[in-house]
């Protein structure tokens, strides 16, 4: 049944043309606990400081954060940006690292109606595709990298 298999492949692969992402490495590990203070998460999730260069790649990359699918952002090499979220230009001047961290980890803590995915949250989701179950969209280190990158956008 090669045709049927091909059809299935199309159905399963093509969405990623529009919404590509992959799972972070170290899947299925328990999530690092964190503490919300006010509207931020003051403490980094990892001991290794975030790397803004890696964070820029992770934010742009359609196989990682894929932030540009929703946000205009100052990444010249990307051809096109979505506009479901606000532009991230200058976000590092508007928000502290703690505030940035919470918005990426779980934006719904601040706005339960938000459509921004919680990138470091797995509980209470409905009908997650089996290969993504119990995995955050970004690893703890990737979160730190993206925070470090956004903090440079002044």
């Amino acid at each position: 049944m090669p045709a049927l298999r091909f059809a299935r492949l199309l159905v399963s692969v093509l969405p990623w043309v529009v919404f590509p992402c992959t799972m972070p490495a170290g899947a299925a590990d328990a999530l690092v606990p964190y503490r919300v203070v006010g509207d931020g998460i003051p403490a980094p999730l990892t001991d290794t400081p975030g790397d803004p260069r890696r964070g820029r790649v992770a934010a742009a990359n359609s196989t990682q954060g894929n932030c540009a699918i929703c946000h205009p952002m100052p990444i010249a090499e990307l051809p096109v940006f979505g506009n479901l979220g606000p532009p991230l230009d200058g976000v590092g001047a508007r928000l502290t690292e703690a505030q940035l961290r919470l918005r990426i980890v779980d934006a719904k803590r601040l706005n339960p109606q938000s459509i921004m995915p919680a990138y470091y949250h797995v509980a209470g989701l409905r009908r997650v595709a089996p290969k993504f179950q119990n995995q955050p969209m970004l690893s703890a280190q990737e979160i730190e990298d993206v925070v470090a990158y956004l903090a440079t956008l002044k």
Partner: protein
Amino acid sequence: MRRPRLGSTMRTLMLAIACIAAATSVPAAAPTDDLARYPVSGRRSGYTYLSPETRAQQKDEFANPGMLWVEQGERLWSLVPDKSKAQAQSCVGCHGDAAKSMRGVAARYPAFDRGEGHVVSLEHRINACRVKKQGATPFAWESQGLLAMTAYVSRQSLDMPVSVKVTGPAARSFERGRTAYYQRRGQLDMACAHCHEERTGARLRAEVISQGQINGHPVYRQLWQTMGSAQRMFAWCNDAVRADPYAYGSQEYTDLELFVKWRGRGLPVETPAIRR
């Protein structure tokens, strides 16, 4: 599965059509672009999000690639699927001229089916006839045959307003569909309504979000380079938010199809529509 061979036949056919079109190249009356008929009470077909070129292609029976499925459906309509069976007869045997007997059918499907005791989509109805009245095996969902039959039957309702029944015995199905539409799901935790109700016209990267209407389904989708049913589109959107899709033809998707079709009530049937 016969799909690859049919696929290449299709391509040959399309080439032939393209050649004929180029050769005869009658610039004649450019097909009318009837954007003016939208919106219908605020409801907009995916048609209104297309480029003028694609809209013209959809309106032009000779340029619209979906018409190849409609034509195949027309051939199947008068074919006996399994001559060895006692019930051997074609669709014509029961329904006669589709232009008359099938007019308006697609506009009111999915619909409650008394015999089945639940709401069924047009694909189910076609397969029920195949099995019960023709003694044939059902078409697989998204198979060439089922898409062709569905496209052909739907084409007979061209330009008729979508009008599904959502009260009486269909009410429970409709309410389940409505609930599903507003329910967040998948790793991205998004509901259909987040995109297709609250953010129409916004862009996901380069993709402009439409109202997600199904008045043109099955559609020829350029991304797929083939026809697809409404339920295939649901599965695509579910995959996009990393949700586990339901099976094609499942009651869950059929309920959702009823709700989504109702959202587009009053929109003209456009099958076979072309979408990006």
